[in-house]
């Protein structure tokens, strides 16, 4: 029974039998029953809670989590408060240690380091831990034992107190030895008291640490060595059982003693090295080190905790911590040196792991800050990639967007580190193909973290092997990022310079980070969406506001006024724009707040009825109406923005309306004129012809019945009357024909001009069979037009040609066509009388003739008719000719845009 007092930051254990211990103490208890556990663990944790330590109590049979909480509640009045602020965690071993045969040491250590980090971040002094091991069976024992060993390697330097509870009934002697070996001391309930049993080896270390200065001030009873003999025996036992190499040597460096630990560490048996020089154990590049160290010893100095490198028998090197002390003879003279060397390969690895985990944690913390602060996705990805490379030390980090395209590509969106064109060359896909079977593609496809443990050997890494190795990538990890629908939207990929560069603990941290990152992106996207919506809302609001103010259309928002029967009887102006004032001539001040009838007492009922329908039924209508009080026409679009309200957008269309009215008036006038013209034509046709016929009839009657009373002159004159009658009859017919050409409705169809011309030619020849006239008609001239009118035009043109070639011995009339300036030009050519070009203007004027009626009878209407017909077909007609050299009439027909 006693108390251990040590230097350093001592913590009260709360257990009387132990008292204070320094941070890093790992001890245990052997218990029999529930009472034993309550007796020790309740005060243990009470003390921890009081001293600002984070408490973690892993419970097990026979004191389960509920019992533990109950006991603490009973003994610690402030327990509820501690629990509420999260200073204590009570959990079952089932939650904490994975079940099954294997016990995952790496994971547990990772958890522990995590925990320590959190505890420190939360502001606690350290971690107070207790765990019940009742669940351990034979299979898990060895595993757990290794864990406890590893645990010691870590906890030695940490602010942690660990009390392990082992059920004594379940432990055999062998196991108790294991327990003893792994814990600094054990407490056992004995005769109603807790007794402390100390681990000799650990005790010895403590002794050595304190240069044997600390006396065993009545600490553990097992440690009461009083005489030299037993002391020597004791020390020898320590030397033999130590895992450290303990080597004796002369001042010249000749090895004189070699313990089991040394044998195990260096691989040499005792007999192989005794008498040899210590330099055997030192790598050649450090050969100077030994002489320097021996020199120090000769001067009586100690060499403490020298971090160096030593060499095994097989030539492999390992990191070691070496402590060298002079050996004095009885007279105090230095005769040699003792070397204690410890292989710190494992420790170094743990340290490195820890360091890396620490860096990872820092990276997570950095990343989380970035996640909170990033203004957008791109900068978030950029920052996270940068942190992973700069803070954690990965060779490269990138984020690839999983594209839903045909090639299923993974598009790099952000990267940092030793890229040097790697991503551009890698063409990663998430399809089930060679380029999609790397970690990134697989992670995207399967939604699971994937690795390439070694680029040099992993067959999946073939497409990227050379490029990766040349950039120092030896392993990689790819972690999927999930969006809020649970699908992978991106993959986060990291490259390490080490083969198998990602420990289990690291993977868990990285996955956690990836989760945070994905969450950050989801939040960011939601935020961006929100901002976009807000902005577009604001924009559209502003746009509408501007539109409202600046638009040329008048705008008014109104409220309908209802009478007792809920029928619209008036409306009130609520809001009006500038254009309203301009278009109505009413000022906003005079209108807003007042009703239509107040402003315009003579307003027509139509307005109120129409707007009433809009406001009450929500109809949207567009109408045109005249306002008598405003003396204006308006085009109005009205809709209802809410119950009993209507908005009217309107334009002043007075001018247009007046124009329309004028057009309507003209149209009516034109129609009347047309009707008059038709009736005039009728009159011409009927009434003017009648008198002519009678004049002619009587003239003939005179010539027949009174021939004996008329001399030759009288007869000639009578005949002149008759000629004039016929001529006037012809004139009347031609004028009527022309008016018909102008007014008749065109019927478009395919017209074969060649055929028409041929039949006209035949008829012309029949009229004067004595004449020799050659008609040449180009075959196959088909056009789109009015058959009757085009026939009439050809009749006139060919008839003219026939008429004006009367004096030719060899009359030649040609009808053909040619392509000219992109259009088809038709022509009728003759070799007849022709005309003087200076009179060409008169050619197409009615009643204008270039030849005397005597030689060439006619009314002067024919060419005008031709011109009207061609014009109605959208074409042009023109002529050329010369006296006695014939005439040519050209015309075109626009078949695309027929005149309607």
């Amino acid at each position, binding site marked *: 029974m006693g108390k251990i007092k040590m230097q350093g930051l001592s913590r009260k254990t709360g257990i009387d039998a132990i008292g204070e211990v320094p941070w890093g103490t790992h001890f245990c208890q052997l218990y029999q029953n529930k009472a034993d556990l309550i007796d020790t663990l309740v005060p243990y944790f009470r003390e921890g809670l009081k001293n600002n330590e984070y408490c973690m109590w892993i419970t097990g049979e026979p004191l389960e989590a509920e019992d533990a909480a109950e006991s603490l509640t009973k003994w610690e009045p402030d327990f509820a408060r501690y629990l509420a602020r999260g200073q204590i965690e009570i959990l079952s071993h089932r939650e904490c240690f994975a079940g099954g045969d294997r016990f995952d040491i790496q994971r547990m250590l990772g958890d522990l380091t995590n925990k320590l980090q959190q505890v420190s971040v939360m502001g606690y002094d350290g971690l107070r831990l207790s765990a019940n091991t009742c669940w351990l069976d034979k299979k898990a024992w060895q595993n757990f034992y290794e864990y406890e060993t590893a645990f010691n390697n870590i906890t030695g330097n940490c602010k942690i107190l660990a009390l392990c509870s082992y059920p004594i009934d379940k432990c055999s002697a062998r196991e108790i030895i294991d327990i003893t070996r792994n814990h600094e001391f054990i407490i056992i309930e004995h005769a109603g008291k807790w007794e402390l049993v100390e681990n000799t080896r650990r005790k010895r270390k403590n002794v050595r640490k304190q240069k044997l200065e600390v006396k065993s001030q009545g600490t553990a009873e097992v440690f009461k060595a009083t005489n030299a003999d037993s002391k020597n025996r004791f020390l020898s036992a320590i030397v033999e059982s130590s895992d450290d190499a303990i080597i004796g040597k002369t001042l010249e460096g000749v090895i004189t003693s070699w313990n089991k630990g040394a044998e195990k560490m260096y691989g040499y048996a005792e007999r192989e090295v005794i008498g040899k020089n210590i330099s055997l154990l030192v790598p050649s590049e450090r050969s100077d080190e030994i002489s320097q160290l021996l020199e120090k010893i000769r001067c009586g100095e100690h060499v403490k905790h020298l971090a160096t490198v030593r060499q095994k028998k097989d030539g492999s090197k390992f990191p070691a911590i070496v402590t060298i002390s002079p050996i004095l003879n009885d007279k105090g003279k230095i005769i040699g040196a003792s070397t204690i060397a410890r292989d710190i390969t494992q420790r170094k690895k743990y340290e490195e792991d820890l360091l890396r985990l620490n860096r990872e944690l820092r990276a997570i913390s950095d990343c989380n800050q970035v996640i909170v602060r990033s203004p957008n996705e791109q900068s978030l990805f950029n920052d996270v990639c940068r942190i992973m490379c700069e803070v954690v030390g990965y060779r490269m980090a990138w984020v690839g967007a999983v594209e839903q395209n045909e090639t299923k590509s993974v598009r790099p969106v952000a990267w940092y580190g030793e890229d040097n064109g790697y991503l551009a060359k890698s063409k990663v896909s998430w399809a089930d193909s060679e380029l999609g079977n790397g970690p990134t593609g697989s992670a995207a496809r399967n939604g699971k973290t994937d690795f390439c443990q070694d680029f040099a050997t992993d067959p999946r890494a073939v497409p990227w092997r050379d490029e990766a190795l040349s950039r120092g990538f030896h392993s990689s990890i790819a972690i999927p990022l999930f969006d809020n629908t649970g699908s992978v939207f991106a993959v986060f990929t990291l490259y390490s310079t080490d083969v198998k560069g990602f420990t289990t603990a690291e993977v868990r941290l990285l996955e956690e980070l990836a989760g945070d990152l994905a969450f950050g992106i989801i939040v960011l996207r939601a935020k961006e969406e929100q901002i976009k919506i807000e902005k577009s809302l604001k924009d559209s609001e502003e746009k509408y506001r501007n539109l409202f103010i600046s638009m040329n259309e008048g705008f008014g928002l109104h409220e309908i006024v209802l009478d007792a029967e809920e029928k619209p009887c008036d409306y009130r102006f609520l809001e009006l724009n500038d254009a309203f004032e301009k278009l109505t001539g009413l000022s906003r001040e005079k209108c807003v707040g007042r009703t239509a009838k107040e402003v315009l007492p003579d307003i027509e009922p139509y307005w109120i009825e129409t707007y009433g329908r809009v406001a009450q039924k929500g109809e949207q209508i567009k109408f045109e109406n005249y306002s008598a009080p405003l003396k204006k026409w308006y085009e109005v679009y009205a809709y209802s923005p809410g119950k009993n309200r209507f908005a009217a957008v309107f334009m002043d269309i007075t001018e247009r309306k007046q124009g329309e009215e004028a057009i309507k008036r003209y149209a009516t006038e034109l129609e009347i004129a047309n009707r008059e013209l038709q009736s005039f034509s009728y009159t011409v*046709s009927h009434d003017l012809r009648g008198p002519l016929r009678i004049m002619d009839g009587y003239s003939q009657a005179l010539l027949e019945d009174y021939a004996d009373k008329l001399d030759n002159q009288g007869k000639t004159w009578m005949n002149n009357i008759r000629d004039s*009658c016929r001529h006037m009859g012809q004139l009347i017919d031609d004028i009527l024909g022309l008016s018909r050409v102008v007014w008749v409705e065109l019927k478009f169809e395919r017209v074969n001009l060649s055929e028409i011309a041929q039949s006209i030619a035949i008829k012309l020849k029949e009229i004067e069979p004595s004449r020799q006239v050659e008609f040449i008609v180009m075959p196959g001239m088909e056009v789109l037009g009015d058959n009757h009118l085009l026939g009439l035009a050809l009749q006139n043109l060919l008839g003219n040609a026939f008429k004006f070639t009367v004096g030719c011995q060899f009359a030649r009339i040609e009808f053909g066509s040619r392509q000219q300036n992109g259009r088809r030009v038709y022509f009728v050519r003759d070799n007849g009388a022709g005309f003087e070009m200076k009179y060409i203007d008169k050619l197409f004027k009615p009643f204008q003739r270039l030849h005397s009626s005597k030689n060439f009878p006619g009314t002067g209407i024919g060419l005008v008719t031709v011109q009207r017909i061609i014009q109605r077909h959208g074409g042009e007609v023109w002529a050329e000719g010369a006296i006695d050299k014939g005439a040519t009439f050209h015309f075109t027909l626009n078949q695309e845009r027929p005149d309607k």
Partner: protein
Amino acid sequence: MNNKVIMLVDDNEHDVFLTQRALQKSNIVNEVVVANDGQGALDYLFRKGKYKDRDAGQMPVVILLDLKMPRVDGFEVLKQIRSNPKTKYTPVVIMTASKEEVDILKGYTEGCNAFVTKPIDFNQFAEVVKQLGLFWLVLNEPPPQKQ
């Protein structure tokens, strides 16, 4: 050429004179009943007014009808002729100065048997009248007379 009666409906006395002259020149000596307007024609045909006592058995073998007449015009006359069972099948030849398509169409719609435009040249006119007379008086079989 038997006792078949030709009816001439025309308000213009000169036209009547010239038509009768043309008939004579063609040696058509049948009786020509002249009505100076539409109403007169209808009165004759349906034995009204001054014709109420005329011989009911005597119906014209052809009616030469002018269109433009005061009071009852030619179309109206034709319409009434066609709507009365007594005259329903009586041949009617519209003889007018008009060449208007609308008139021609309307004439046939109302049931005329022929539409002839009077030429201005008297010789031509005489020829037309001659042909008409020959056709309707000689060649054409008139509808059977009832009663």
